């Protein structure tokens, strides 16, 4: 999967009217909450086999940080 595909999926997971970009600060997304984090945990597991917990989001600030959580499975 490349970054653009992930950004499209993220837009759907967060149900955003506006597209997501890599440098976006997640704290500025009103859609970024515990439920969307729960959805992202399910998405990462289903798509990449990466198992995350809520703790993994503690140091996440930007969309780029989310890409990092996929452990190199999202290419350019």
């Amino acid at each position: 999967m490349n970054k653009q595909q992930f950004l499209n999926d993220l837009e759907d997971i967060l149900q955003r009217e506006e597209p997501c970009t890599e440098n976006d600060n997640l704290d500025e997304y009103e859609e970024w909450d515990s439920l969307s984090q729960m959805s992202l945990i399910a998405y990462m597991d289903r798509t990449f086999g990466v198992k995350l917990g809520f703790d993994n989001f503690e140091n996440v600030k930007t969309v780029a940080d989310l890409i990092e959580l996929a452990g190199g499975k999202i290419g350019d």
Partner: protein
Amino acid sequence: MEIKFDKEQRFIVTGASSGIGENTALMLNKLGATVIAIGRNKERLQMLVEQSYSPENMFTEQKDLTEDIPSLPQYVKSLKDKYGKFQGLVYGAGIGKVEPLQMIQYPEVIKEFETNYFAPLFMAKGFADRRINNGSGSACVFVSSIASFCSDKGHVVYAGSKAALSASVKSMAKELAKNGVRMNCVSPSAVNTPMLDEHSRSEEQMKKYPFGIAETEDVSNLIVYLLSDKAKFISAQNYIIDSGGVS
């Protein structure tokens, strides 16, 4: 108390070609809302438009919701692109067979769960998307059944499918509360619809209903109330309408 809607408030009503869905569609339309009525029977949907108080605000979509359940969220999105964002969803479609445990067959069990549980789940998934509904003030009502609380002989599968629906609606309601979207169920006992089987009309059964068999309007009244802003503090509930005593 007066309940009013305006034509910018659009409601999807499934199972609209007969019974509770049909009556709810007509009631919402009469109270000023725009209705997108989904049903399988084209002729009956046409009759629905003819019976409407405001035919110009009654739109029909012929569809069998079980033919491609995974694509239902995309279907709801296509309706939003066609009509605009939605204020509410009424899931009135349902099937029920009276079959004791000994007679159940797997394909029929699946079919009943597809209509009564899987399809409403995926319609709800489509509606719940922030890009599809109006946000705060939006509401869904799912028609469950008294069987989900206390089922009778022969309702092994039907009761299970409706209990599954009622249980899931509670969870959905908690997930969507943050967006201001309310989710509720109504659980009627016997209602005078084409779906009501002969067993439920029997003399023995009738003794259970002190107020008799409900008419569709008796259920629609509650559905419309739950969709309105008069019910703005009510979510994650499942209301029994059992003619005074079955449960």
